[in-house]
């Protein structure tokens, strides 16, 4: 075996390495100030704040923010897993109006009212009531809104004028479909619509169409359970067929792969003439560096059988119950969602004042710089949000917590994603719409009678 001499040398060497390593570790630990881990979704407004954080936040407070920027589905997975299992990985997580009340109900998040009500600078009452309510559960505010949105139609005024067509301010889906088919051409598709699988991707806009066509996913059951699946109803099929046919006739290329980011690109590159999607898209399409700035006009979300159809959504920041440093987490949240950021960001962002995160605070809409830059869409943006039918999205009672483009039950994530996978397959032309709906019915029926 080894001689005692070699053994001693090896032992000393190992100890020395361990010592050096541990001192290096300790040194780095001491050199850092406070730092927090924040998980956010990779949308333009979030990327903006991530790039402005060192200059506007870290310099002032000494808190280093480690952003984990993820794509929407991945973010949801990771956040649900971490928050649901009591993980300590993140101090702040970004969640939406779907998760906030549910996670609050499950007891997974810290009630932010405790922090916000004592913080005068935060101006809690400045937040638009509909948004604040959408993120609350039984009086507790479980996430602070970063930006909020509804949905509407964005269209190229110049293209429609050239074709001699006028878009009413409150159109019906039939009118929009006809306009799209008329102006569709080889270079520029008539309309861009989402087709990517995911309850938050295709499921969002399609959900509003389902509502306004008089259909729904499930009826409300008794005692907080999910009722009968309504996917097999003719109205549901009508809505899905409408969407698939419109994409087929006048939609963009690679439709089954397109979501918010893809359609943004299509619009910016003038490859699509119209787009039905989140109102926040206007912020990017009207940015200072947008090639189509000033060429767009807007119409409210198209309807069929209901008075209004726009959705209501907010991306918001929350603190998990087991977050290691809640005080620092709140300091960050109060800056990121507070009035101060909205007041200064516009001058620093490459896209200008139009790209500031919209829809959360009344003070932003009273800011003259914002009013000027967002003149073309600020009013209709607020109108869309106010008209969002949060109390009765369609023609029937739904189970779960309030929601327009989703059903406020936890099972909707799974059912919505698997169903939209099937429908996306129909958009791609792999399966017929009837087969896709049959599969979707099987999926939705699996959770009938379950508690939510």
């Amino acid at each position, binding site marked *: 075996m080894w001689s005692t001499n070699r053994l001693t040398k090896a032992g000393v060497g190992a100890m020395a390495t361990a010592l050096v390593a541990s001192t290096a570790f300790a040194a780095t630990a001491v050199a850092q100030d406070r730092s927090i881990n924040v998980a956010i979704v990779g949308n333009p407004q979030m990327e903006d704040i991530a790039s402005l954080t060192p200059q506007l936040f870290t310099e002032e407070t000494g808190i280093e923010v480690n952003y984990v920027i993820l794509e929407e*589905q991945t973010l949801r*997975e990771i956040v*649900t*897993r971490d928050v*649901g*299992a009591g993980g300590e990985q993140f101090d702040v997580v970004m969640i939406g109006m779907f998760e906030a009340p*549910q996670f609050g109900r*499950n007891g997974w998040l810290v009630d932010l009212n405790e922090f916000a009500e004592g913080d005068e600078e935060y101006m809690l009452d400045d937040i638009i009531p509909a948004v604040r309510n959408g993120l609350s559960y039984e009086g507790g505010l479980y996430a602070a809104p970063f930006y909020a949105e509804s949905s509407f139609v964005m269209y190229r005024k110049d293209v429609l004028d050239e074709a001699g067509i006028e878009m009413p301010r409150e159109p019906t889906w039939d009118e929009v479909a006809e306009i799209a088919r008329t102006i569709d051409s080889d270079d520029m598709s008539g309309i861009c619509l989402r087709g990517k*699988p*995911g309850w938050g991707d295709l499921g969002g806009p399609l959900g509003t169409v389902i509502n306004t066509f008089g259909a729904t996913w499930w009826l409300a059951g008794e005692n907080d359970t999910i009722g009968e699946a309504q996917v097999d109803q003719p109205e549901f099929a009508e809505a899905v067929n409408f969407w698939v046919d419109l994409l087929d006739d006048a939609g963009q*290329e*690679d439709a*089954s*792969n397109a979501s918010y980011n893809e359609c943004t690109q299509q619009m910016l590159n003038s490859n699509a003439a119209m787009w039905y999607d989140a109102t926040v898209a206007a912020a990017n399409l009207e940015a200072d560096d947008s090639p189509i700035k000033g060429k767009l006009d807007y119409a409210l979300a198209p309807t069929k059988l209901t008075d209004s159809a726009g959705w209501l959504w907010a991306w918001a920041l929350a603190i998990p119950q087991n977050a290691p440093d809640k005080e620092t987490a709140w300091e960050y949240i109060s800056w990121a969602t507070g009035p101060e950021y909205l007041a200064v960001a516009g001058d620093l962002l490459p896209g200008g004042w139009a790209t500031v995160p919209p829809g959360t605070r009344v003070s932003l809409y009273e800011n003259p710089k914002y009013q000027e830059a967002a003149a073309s869409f600020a009013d209709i943006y607020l109108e869309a949000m106010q008209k969002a039918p949060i109390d009765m999205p369609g023609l029937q009672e739904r189970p779960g917590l309030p929601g327009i483009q989703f059903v406020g*039950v*936890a*099972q909707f*994530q*799974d059912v919505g*994603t*698997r169903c939209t*996978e*099937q429908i*996306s*397959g129909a*958009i*791609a*032309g*792999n*399966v017929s719409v009837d087969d*896709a709906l049959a*599969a979707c019915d*099987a*999926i939705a029926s699996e959770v009938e009678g*379950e*508690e*939510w």
Partner: protein
Amino acid sequence: MTTNTEPQSSDRAAAERAAAIAEFQRKDKWRRRLPLLPALLFTIVVTQIPFLFNIWFSLQDWKIVPPRGPDFTGLENFTEGYSNTFFLDAVGISIGMTTAAVLLSLLVGTGLALLLDRQFFGRGIARTLLITPFLIMPVVAGLLWKNQIFSATFGVVNAVIEPLGFDAIPFVERYPFWAIVTVLVWQWSPFMMLIILAGLQGQPTDILEAARVDRASGRGIFTQITLPMLRPYMELGIVLGAIYLLQVFDHIDVMTGGGPGSTNVPYFVYQRSIGGGWDFGQAAAYSIIVVIATIIIATIALRVLSSLFQRQETA
């Protein structure tokens, strides 16, 4: 000179010696195995204990979203899962995808190996370039093919066929299964090629020379001498390829994100657990069904069909 007593005592002595030898051999076996115990214990702890947990979870009704359980339900997850159409679809896709990818990459790999078997200018460079696809990360390979080659808007293939008058074909959306198989074949052909190449270069040259002297045609040499000799190598390639290709996940996740035509069993189990279903009991049950099925198939394949083990026993 023999005496009558000698056979008796020599018998007893022989018996005692035999007993002593047996005792020594038994202890010796244990002495040889002892150093292996730590590794064995480690393997058991790391693989079998989680497996036991998995079996326990599969007997529970346990969902994270909405929070429910864990409550003991016995074999309910198995009976439900066994007949679930989506699970059976996934099984079909798994089998189809693995078979197609293994066989096609074996075919392409053998072809490439035959081409590389002869000496030519630039052979080293050609071999290196051919091995490269295997070294690329699966996620990168999937995205590369999806966005740069297959895409209807940006892809190379459509950029070539569109000016020729054809409509752009969104390959990944229209043919998800074959798009994924294509990427798998692209990545795994080098693997098969290396194995077959080793086999080709191990051919006894004197037999080949004798065949050529007897004026056997090239094709004859190939089908009658080379192919049978390559059989164990091909089997090895199939076994190893199947083991890995059954577990394909990355390509499916980045190229199609699941969906009706391209969800195989690993992806399905992921979807049922942390990929959106959050039903840990059910996902555990599915994975155990897969383990049982795999053991059955693998036992049949390796013991009955394969000649690999037979060669070992005669050696």
